């Protein structure tokens, strides 16, 4: 059981050696990269929604901005042709900048109104991407994205018995990109962890719990919200940059629409708002199901039944499945699979009361009885005066 507490580390260890395991030659884990990318996006949303409590319904816009920034900076027919690292850094900055610029004017909106306006902002970005044909290629998307060779490896071909790839060719080649995304995801988790434990992170949580009280305690809500958006949007931009690189195209702008924003909110809520490990779990479960498992299961079902009816395809039912997950989670476990402690207390007052009552009883017992309840007093008795 003790081992399970470190499941995130174990998971990362497994994922790090997975490409070398003799699992199946058809399945080298390439499709896992998409999980890592969405997990980064979900961590970004977690900072905004989970830690700071801003219901942002347009997170997909930052994903799109990241993808298109990389597209524009690297693709052949624009004059920039930067390397992937430069483009990715620019994508992060660009998304964070757009996030801050669009959020700054709407900071005084709250709750539903904020949700609506962020939804509108997300859609405006989507329409802009779709309609600015000379820059974004309209509905075709920018392709092919080629961000040049990986520095330091050029010319060196490392054929391994399993990876069967030319190391040292391109960023998007399988083992490279897999490890790059895994590494970045690990880095993002560390970053979020450190942020959570920093002054900034505690201030975010205070703001989420009670904005008025936090303001009275001298916190500046505007600055805190902007910081949260900057981090969240920046991570979204990073995820978008990786996504464009993985596909080698920005794809159809429709990829970055409201459904994606909602899907990410599902991931955050399923895992446990405000708990980065929970969000990681939620993303792996939901995106893993959506992007990897449904394909496999669909093939199985088809092989079993022998018909290609749309009703027999799980992919035809994906929205119903998401919807049911959302409704059932909200009904029976609104705090998510791995609840953040504070949110659990908030949503289940009885737990908080029980905790508070237990503490109060312990205190009373300690005060009243001559026999101390706890064998070891919390503070060693100081020298009596």
């Amino acid at each position: 059981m003790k081992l399970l507490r470190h499941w995130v580390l174990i998971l990362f260890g497994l994922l790090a050696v997975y490409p070398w395991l003799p699992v199946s030659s058809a399945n080298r884990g390439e499709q896992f990269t998409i999980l890592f990318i969405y997990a980064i996006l979900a961590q970004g949303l977690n900072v905004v929604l989970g830690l700071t409590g801003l219901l942002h319904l347009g997170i997909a816009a930052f994903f799109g901005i990241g993808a298109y920034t990389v597209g524009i900076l690297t693709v052949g027919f624009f004059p920039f042709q930067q390397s992937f690292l430069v483009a990715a850094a620019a994508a992060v900055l660009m998304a964070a900048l757009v996030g801050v610029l669009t959020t700054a004017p709407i900071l005084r909106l709250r709750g539903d109104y904020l949700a609506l306006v962020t939804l509108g902002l997300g859609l405006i970005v989507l329409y802009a991407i779709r309609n600015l044909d000379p820059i974004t290629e309209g509905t075709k998307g920018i392709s092919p994205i080629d961000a040049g060779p990986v520095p330091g490896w050029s010319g060196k071909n490392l054929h391994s018995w399993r990876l069967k790839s030319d190391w040292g060719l391109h960023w998007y080649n399988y083992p490279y990109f897999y490890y790059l995304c895994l590494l970045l995801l690990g880095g993002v988790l560390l970053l979020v962890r450190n942020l959570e434990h920093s002054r900034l992170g505690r201030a975010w949580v205070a703001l989420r719990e009670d904005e008025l009280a936090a303001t009275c305690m001298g916190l500046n809500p505007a600055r805190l919200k902007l910081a949260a958006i900057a981090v969240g949007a920046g991570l979204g931009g990073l995820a978008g940059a990786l996504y464009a690189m993985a596909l080698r195209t920005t794809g159809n702008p429709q990829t970055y629409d409201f459904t994606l924003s909602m899907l990410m909110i599902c991931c955050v809520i399923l895992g446990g708002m405000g708990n980065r490990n929970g969000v990681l779990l939620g993303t792996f479960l939901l995106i893993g199901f959506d992007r990897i498992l449904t394909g496999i299961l669909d093939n199985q079902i088809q092989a079993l039944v022998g018909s290609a009816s749309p009703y027999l395809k799980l992919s035809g039912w994906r929205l119903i499945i998401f919807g049911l997950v959302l409704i059932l989670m909200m009904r029976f476990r609104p705090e998510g699979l791995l609840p953040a402690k504070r949110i659990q207390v908030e949503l289940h007052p009885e737990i908080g009361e029980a905790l508070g009552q237990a503490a109060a009883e312990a205190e009373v017992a300690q005060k009243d009885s001559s026999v101390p309840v706890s064998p070891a007093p919390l503070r060693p008795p100081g020298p009596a005066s």
Partner: protein
Amino acid sequence: MAELFASSEPAVGFLQFLMLGLVIGSLYALIALGYTMVYGIIELINFAHGDLFMLGSFVALGVAIWPMGVTSADAPTGAIMATVALMLLVTPVFCALLNVTVDRVVYRPLRQSPKLTVIVSAIGVSFIFMNIGLLWRGATPVKFPDLIGDTNLLEGTGLRFTWEDLLVVAVTVPTMIALTLFVRYTTLGKAMRATAQNPVAAQLMGINVNQVIAVTFALGGALAGVASVIYGLYIKAVDYQMGFQNGLYAFTAAVLGGVGNIPGAVLGGLLIGVVGELSKAYLGAKWSEAVIFGILIVILLFRPTGLLGARTREKV
């Protein structure tokens, strides 16, 4: 569309787009009323409302094709009128029942939960509806029978106002007036307003709050149903994603006017219709959505509770 009524007079062109905008806007207003009523009473942004509207239009389509078999404006006038009447009867009832069921099954157990919980459930319901629509009629738009025809009623004036435009106005305006009167003057309407103001106090006064909320959901659903019939007859194509798009406009309309405010929703709907049509005419169709949301954001910046919304004070 634009060249259809391209007039030599720019002023006439403007008037034409204004009129078209008002017609489409009253359609948005009709959908927005359902939103705003539900919001007014339990402060829920009902994301599923647009998709309920979409399912309603599919039911209306089924009514036109299956029992009546009337699929074009060439059919006898009596048959057309009977079909439209049947659609206007069946669809609202279907939408009302569905909406009440959803409230009973999904939202009622969450009455005491934080707001976010209920909003997320509503999004879940919206996803389910959308998927049902997808499985029902597929991903491509389906043609809706053209029953009304588009004879111009203002021949010779350079303007265009068809039977279809008239139908939209003739159904939506009385519906909106009836709703306003209902909420203002009936006992049930009073109970609704009382529940909206303070559910606990309303309960203490002997109002069955759950029942009042169910009635609100039924009314909201019925409005979505009426709107879906009119929309199908007017736009003549329906698809499973139209609920999201139109729901969003209705939602924007409701917020623009001040959510929970019935005249506000009508004003917001008309405003969105007019702005949408004018931006289509003068900026190009592809930018009209961006303009609508841009205006929404700008208005909310200056009036955070909407045009007719009451200013709320921070509760301490």
